[in-house]
Each structure stands twice: as structure tokens, then as C-alpha cells.
């Protein structure tokens, strides 16, 4: 037992596992809306876009959270605005805005001439390097995201499922889009130092997809996704301590393993249910 609890004696580990668990919950929560809107690529793209803002903040001496957050918000809103034009579509909008924003970051790096340690942690994550302030920031954003989803549950669901009818029924879909963009930007900004630009997308997508494989109900998908995100954050960081792996990839590989299990489970269950499904269609 002592061996199992050994890593918890270290403050850096306690902070790291707390922030990874919270990040998993946050990604699982917001990721459900991202995946169901068919915008899974936005997490990947936006994290690259925010990288541009993060680098610019370092170069100009601004607050990381403020600079990267504002940059990300502008990018997210630009993506949503461009994606509304059906002739372009969400995937192309993400491609245009995020690569341009990423390129700005690369240009700044090339002008400065070298990576700094902070920029490396933005790219690859450094969960064991976080302090209590980072934990509190991630906890704060997770709480706010939870409150927003709870208070605007049906509006967000309606806008995600059927935006045209939601509009007709009195839901301000434009406001819901901006709200989601805000949540996504805040998520990526605060999770960047934990998972890194390159791995956030995985945690935004894998827990919701596992939830989708396991249920046909939206609210159950939301709960499963949050629980899976938390589990992967906790177990991934814990395993990384013993296996001496980088923490970000350990979290993502835990999630990928869970996806494989969920996929197999769903396939087996589907095979056992053909009769029930047939009955349902006859009605």
C-alpha cells in the first residue's frame, strides 16, 4: 500500500495528478459538444492557433493566459464565423485560421531565434512542472465550464442537435456558439501546460467518443465522457510516474486503451442486440 501511495508524498506529483484529473474532466465535458458538432479537428487546430498567441505573449512579455486566451478566442470566433458559410465548411475554416495563427507563432520564434523552456512546455506539456496556482486556474475553469453547461444545458444541446429549429424556438444559437468558443479557448489555454498543444486534441475527442460508443443518451454520454476524462488523467499521470514516461502521452495512451476496450464492448453488445433492434424498427 505504501508503495502505491508513494508518489503522493511529493507535492509536484499531487499537483500534477490533480491538474491532469481536472483537465480530463474539462476536456470530457466540452469535448462532447465539439465531437457532436463534427468539429473534432477544432481542438487540434485551435491548440495550434493558441500556440501562436502563447509565443507572442512570451516574446512581448504579456501574461501567458491573457495573451494566449485572447488570441485563441479571436481564432475560435473567426472559425465559427467562417464555418457558418456553408460553401466553406468547418474543416476548411479551421484549416485556414489555425495554420495562419500557428505560422505567426513560428515566425516570432524564428525572429527571436530560439525556443525558451516555457515554449517547449506549451508544445509538449509538463504536468509534473505545474504549481498550486496552475491547479487553481484549471479548477476554476472546470467549475465555470460545469456551471455554464448546467445553466445552458438545453440551449447548448438544442443548438448542437438542431441549430435551425433551436433558432426558431427562441434559442440564440449565435450566443451559444460564442459561449462554446469561449469555453474551448479557456480549456485549451489552461490545459496547454498540462497536456501540450499536440495532445489536447486527443483528450477533447477520445472521452466523448467512448461515451458515444457506450450510450445513445445525451446526458449519459456527458457523464461518461467526464468520468472517462478524469480517469484517464488520473491513471495516465500515475502510470507515468512508475513507467517513467512523459505524462501527456501516458494520459493519451490510457484514453486510447479505453477507447479500444469500449469499441470492443460496443461491438459485442451490438451483436447481442439484433432482435431488440428489429423489434424497435417494426413499431
Amino acid at each position: 500500500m505504501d508503495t502505491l501511495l508513494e508518489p503522493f508524498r511529493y507535492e509536484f506529483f499531487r499537483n500534477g495528478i490533480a491538474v491532469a484529473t481536472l483537465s480530463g474532466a474539462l476536456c470530457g465535458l466540452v469535448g462532447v459538444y465539439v465531437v457532436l458538432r463534427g468539429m473534432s479537428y477544432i481542438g487540434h487546430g485551435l491548440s495550434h492557433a493558441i500556440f501562436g498567441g502563447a509565443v507572442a505573449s512570451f516574446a512581448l512579455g504579456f501574461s501567458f493566459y491573457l495573451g494566449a486566451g485572447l488570441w485563441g478566442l479571436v481564432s475560435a470566433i473567426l472559425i465559427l464565423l467562417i464555418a457558418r458559410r456553408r460553401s466553406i465548411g468547418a474543416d476548411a475554416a479551421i484549416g485556414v485560421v489555425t495554420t495562419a495563427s500557428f505560422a505567426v507563432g513560428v515566425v516570432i520564434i524564428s525572429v527571436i531565434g530560439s525556443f525558451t523552456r516555457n515554449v517547449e512546455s506549451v508544445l509538449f506539456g509538463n504536468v509534473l512542472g505545474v504549481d498550486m496556482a496552475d491547479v487553481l486556474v484549471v479548477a476554476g475553469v472546470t467549475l465555470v465550464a460545469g456551471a455554464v453547461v448546467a445553466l445552458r444545458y438545453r440551449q447548448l444541446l438544442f443548438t448542437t442537435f438542431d441549430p435551425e429549429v433551436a433558432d426558431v424556438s427562441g434559442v440564440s444559437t449565435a450566443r451559444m456558439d460564442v459561449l462554446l468558443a469561449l469555453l474551448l479557448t479557456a480549456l485549451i489555454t489552461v490545459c496547454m501546460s498540462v497536456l501540450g498543444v499536440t495532445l489536447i486534441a486527443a483528450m477533447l475527442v477520445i472521452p466523448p467518443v467512448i461515451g458515444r460508443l457506450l450510450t445513445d443518451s445525451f446526458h449519459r454520454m456527458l457523464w461518461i465522457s467526464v468520468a472517462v476524462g478524469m480517469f484517464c488523467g488520473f491513471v495516465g499521470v500515475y502510470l507515468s510516474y512508475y513507467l517513467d514516461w512523459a505524462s501527456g502521452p501516458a494520459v493519451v495512451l490510457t484514453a486510447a486503451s479505453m477507447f479500444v476496450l469500449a469499441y470492443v464492448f460496443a461491438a459485442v453488445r451490438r451483436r447481442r442486440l439484433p432482435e431488440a433492434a428489429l423489434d424497435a424498427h417494426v413499431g
Partner: protein
Amino acid sequence: MNQLIRFERVTCRYGIEPVLVNVDLVVSEGDFVGIVGPSGSGKTTLLRAIAGVVKPIAGRIVRDRAATIGYVPQVETVNWYFPVTVREAVLMSRIDGRVFPWASKRDLHDADDVLDRLGIGNLGDRHIRELSGGQQQRVFVARAMLRRPKLLLMDEPTSGVDVRTRHDVMHLIHELHHDGLAVVLTTHDLNGIAAHLPQLVCLNREVIATGRPQEVITPEVLERTYGAPLEVLSHGGMPVVVEHYPEVEEIERKVVPLREGHHGHPA
């Protein structure tokens, strides 16, 4: 009858292209109106303008502010793989004045009540994909009905469904209308749907004609609406539109003499 909505020379556009031009229309309590016209004639835009989502660039729309509107989309536009149960889909429209994400007892009671009324009360926990075509349409009618509307807007409620489902859906809509609901629907089906409605609007960006089916389903009006000649017969006092397919007729003209020739010269 109290007017629910009145269009006065309303013009709407998407981008630079006008979609509706100088449209005059009145929908009152208890009305049952069908909107017919070719693809791209502005039928859905007219529904969305009635619902208040599309704003006119000219003219005026006067609406009874107390009259709630329910909207039923084309089922073909629904994402059937979205993870929602029937009850969750219906409860989506209960968005007013609710702080907590979970449904209140009253919400659940109302949702189950409207599902019962539409004959799908036992399907609340099913995923929407697991239903038959008629049941799927009823789910979205139920979602609209949960808003307790005075006016129900339905976009192509029978498109992409078989004859039996079409009959079921139209039976349901007539029942709702008999219960006092005003209904405006769009349809491409002139013989199966439009000819059986009390009032029609023929639309091709502008209103070509309005009135009872016998008054507007005429060769002249249809040619102006669809831009092609259509033959109209009368069957039991109801107009029946005969569709001609010149290409098919041309092939038949060539094939029939060949067949006759074949039979005339047995081997």
C-alpha cells in the same frame, strides 16, 4: 378569427439574391395552409420568416406576440446518429425559465403527456433512430407541441416517407388542426397532400395564387408556379395533376412500335 401573422409586401433575401418578393399572406387561428412551389421557390424561407428567424428587407410582418410557434423540420435534415432518446429530443424545446439541467417533474409529465397524445408514449427511452418513419415524424411534432403553440409550421412533413407513413402523418396533422391548432406546411406533393388541404399558396418567390385547391390547382396557375405546362384532371371534384415526362414518352413512342412489330412477326 384572430390573425396570428400578416405579411404585407414582404421581401426577404439571402446574400444579394431575393428569395421572397412582395409576399402578402395572412394566417389566422384555425387555418390550415399548404405552400407549394418548385425547389428554390422560397417555401422554407417563408416558413422561417413566419417563425421570425428570417427578417424582411422590405415590407412588414405583423405577428400576434402571444401566439407561440412550433416548428417541425424536414426529417431528412435530422442527424439520426446524434445521441438523444425520444424524451430528450422532446424536452429540448422546454427552454423557458429553467435553471437546472435536469427535467422537472412537470417537464417530464408534459413530455410524456404529449408523447401519449401522439401515440408514442411507450417509446420515450428509445433512441430516435430506432423508430419507424411515422414515429420519427411524431417525435418532432411532439417537440413542437411541448411549446403549446397556436401555430404549427411543418417543412415537408411527408418528404421521403412511404405512402402508409404519409397517410399516418397527414392523419395526425388533421387531428391537431381539429384540436384548434393553425397549421402551415410546405409540400411538393400536389396530388397526395396539397389537393386535400383547405387552403393553398402557390409560391415561386412571389405568391402566384392563393385559395382552395380547386381554385389554384389549375393549368394556368401551375404553369406560372412551376414554369412548365401541367395537365389537371378532375376526379370526384378534386383536382389531379398529371405529370408528363417528354423523354419517357419519346422512348415509349419508339419502343412500343418495335414490340408490336416483334409480336406481329413470330419466329
